[in-house]
């Protein structure tokens, strides 16, 4: 069985300060992990993905995430928040075996940026 938990439903940071969005996963097999961003009234856009090639993954817009197997975590970080980062962020895990339906979404974290 697999699952994903986003530990914070809402995170608020000041512009220019670091961002940390937390994600823990559970998977019976070697997982692939993704972070998507959804800006207001828009579809989801891929930020980055982990595919076992490297544990530190760099994505678009200065975001990165580190896969930590021992902690079953895939937290999303950014050194300095920008107003345009305000959005909803989803952590996603897929099964280690082929299955079109085994894509599990977290419940999302809303990121707010204070001026």
């Amino acid at each position, binding site marked *: 069985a697999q699952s994903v938990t986003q530990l914070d439903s809402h995170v608020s940071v000041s512009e220019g300060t670091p961002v940390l969005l937390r994600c823990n996963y559970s998977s019976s097999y070697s997982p692939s992990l*993704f972070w998507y961003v959804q800006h207001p009234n828009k579809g989801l856009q891929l930020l980055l993905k982990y595919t076992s090639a490297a544990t530190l993954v760099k994505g678009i817009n200065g975001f990165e995430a580190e896969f930590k197997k021992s902690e079953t975590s895939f937290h999303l970080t950014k050194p300095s928040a920008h107003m345009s980062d305000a959005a909803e962020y989803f952590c996603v895990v897929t099964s280690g*075996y082929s*299955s079109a339906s085994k894509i599990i979404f977290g419940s999302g974290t809303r990121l707010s940026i204070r001026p």
Partner: protein
Amino acid sequence: NAGVTQTPKFRVLKTGQSMTLLCAQDMNHEYMYWYRQDPGMGLRLIHYSVGEGTTAKGEVPDGYNVSRLKKQNFLLGLESAAPSQTSVYFCASRPRDRVWNEQFFGPGTRLTVL
């Protein structure tokens, strides 16, 4: 290359009415998905398809039907709309299954059922 498109963008229905949402992708992806998004619940899978002519149920299929007559199109139907189906609906597509393949999402359809 338009990616994934959805029609319509907005719709208001009365209880009991029917409608069809259209999803189209031009990336030649084998897999297509329909999700609904409700506040605080992330995305929930309604139905999915692994190829032309095949569909399967997801997590919340009741009240919905789908068809995939052409590889590039995936239709979601509501035969008798209910207020509980008020939601934002997203379509996604994905290349033939490799666990590291990401999904590509459409812009969404906002449906209100009165």
